[in-house]
């Protein structure tokens, strides 16, 4: 018993190095970015850097556009993922790692190149229009439009939605589905009443993993938006890399962080009970 107590008393020290690391490279950098955000170049306290996300019309527009893209991208990812997971389950591919393999594999090709490939596919004289005209359809003009950015975002973040949903659905005990059918539920009811509610944890972590990056990305809009369509990520990047205005850039980042955390607050509640779910 004594031995046991010694052990439990000692073990927390193992997390010491990690704790130091968190303080040094997670907490302190956040303090620094807040300091930049809350002071101007002359060392005076100001809220204008943070408020800049709403005060300038360009920023407002970019923020609104980012929200649109993020919401749309998240919604499309959900709508595409559920049927896919159900189809994989139906095809009996669920127990083999193969379907996961198919979904993860594209992530191993550099994402900037893959987005670039979408530019080649979607551009006005690109592959898609070549196919359409060969088949006798009218060509479509989606290059450099919000649609193109949406396609690119959905493409890039879809696996991050599929994987957690896949994991949580495959974890559902087949007995529960049989029990529901036994009680008179058809496949559709089984999905609505059993599978959907039981996969909520997966869905929520999928939303976190898709919503935040799709809102803050700047590479996809850079490539597929033709430089004219700007997300909030593009604005922040330019404050740092082009205008060299670190205070405003930090202010925008902090504002973005607060917005993201606020919008994620509702998902945190669900996962707060110590059950951290992972992707794969």
């Amino acid at each position: 018993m004594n031995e046991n107590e010694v052990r439990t008393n000692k073990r927390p020290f193992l997390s010491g190095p990690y704790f130091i690391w968190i303080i040094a490279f997670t907490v302190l950098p956040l303090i620094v970015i807040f300091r930049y955000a809350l002071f101007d170049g002359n060392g005076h306290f100001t809220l204008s850097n943070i408020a800049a996300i709403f005060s300038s019309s360009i920023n407002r527009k970019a923020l609104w556009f980012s929200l649109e893209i993020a919401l749309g991208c998240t919604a499309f990812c959900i709508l595409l993922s559920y049927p896919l997971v159900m189809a994989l389950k139906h095809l009996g591919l669920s127990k083999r790692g193969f379907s996961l393999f198919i979904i993860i594999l594209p992530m191993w090709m550099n994402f900037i190149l893959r987005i670039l490939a979408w530019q080649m596919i979607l551009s006005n004289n690109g592959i898609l229009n070549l196919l359409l005209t060969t088949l006798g359809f009218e060509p479509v003009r989606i290059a450099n439009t919000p649609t193109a950015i949406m396609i690119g975002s959905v493409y890039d973040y879809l696996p991050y939605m599929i994987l957690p949903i896949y994991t949580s659905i495959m974890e559902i005990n087949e007995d529960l589905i049989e029990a529901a059918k036994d009680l008179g539920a058809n496949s559709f009811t089984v999905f609505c009443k059993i599978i959907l509610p039981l996969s909520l944890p997966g869905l929520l972590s999928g939303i976190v993993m898709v919503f935040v990056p799709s809102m803050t990305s700047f590479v996809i809009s850079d490539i597929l938006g033709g430089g004219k369509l700007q997300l909030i990520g593009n604005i922040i990047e330019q404050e740092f890399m082009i205008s060299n205005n670190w205070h405003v850039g930090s202010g925008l980042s902090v504002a973005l962080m607060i917005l993201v955390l606020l919008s994620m607050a509702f998902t945190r509640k669900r996962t707060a009970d110590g059950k951290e779910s992972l992707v794969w």
Partner: protein
Amino acid sequence: MKHLKHFACSFLNCVKNIFLAIRKHFKGILSGIYVGLIGLFLYAPILVLIVLSFNKGRSRVKWEGFSFKWYEALFSNSQIGDALVTTIVLALASAGIAVLIGVPGAIGMHALGKKKFKVMMGLTNIPLLNADIVTGIALMLWFVHFIPLGFGSVLIAHITFNIPYVILSVMPRLQQMNVSVYEATRDLGAGPVYAFFKIVLPDLMPGIVSGFFMAFTMSMDDFVITFFTKGPGVNTLSTMIYGQLKKGIKPEMYALSTLIFLVVSAVLLVVNGISDRKKTPKAEQIERI
């Protein structure tokens, strides 16, 4: 006439059977088509890049004939070689160090009281929840005061966002672990170090391995954080490609990404084949009888 009737009958029967078969497998067929379409969506750009890597000309739209010339050029391009080495070393080192800090970290956290555990978990989640761009900028602003931006700063940044993946994949296994096994080992006379390496560590191994691979993948895949924390002269493949965007991507990049893609698919296929053979669905089916 009789023949005709017979023929018509059997024809109708045949149609009916086909119809029944379609109806019976309707869901399966629909599922197959849908999976195929998503597959096409996921793999279309990859196919485009692979085709382009064999294109003779520099054009990104026109096929000018088959050639291996970009593959040849790839091996004589030291810049790309350097970026590749940087990317891989960075991914291996950051994932390895993340494991070395994260695994003891998780074990220590597991032994903490409920409140402290929650605080640590909350801190662990910050890099995961925060947008990459915010993490990257915060680290950059912090680094410029203390250390030169270069490989070292990028490595620290990657370790920082990798540790949470290690912790989150080790933690569930820790929580499931049967403490009495550890205690039995101690009871049978094993010292704490021996018990850790013989009992605890093997039990955590699957979590550690998946944490390592996740960290490795995330590091390979990262662009934004590297972009903000790197100094001049240091390039990973991602930042190099991004740098070339305005001027036009060198076709060697297509060749390289094709090679990486093929190597990774081969490795994953082999790993998959091994783990598949270990756990056949047969066993599960028999259980259900």
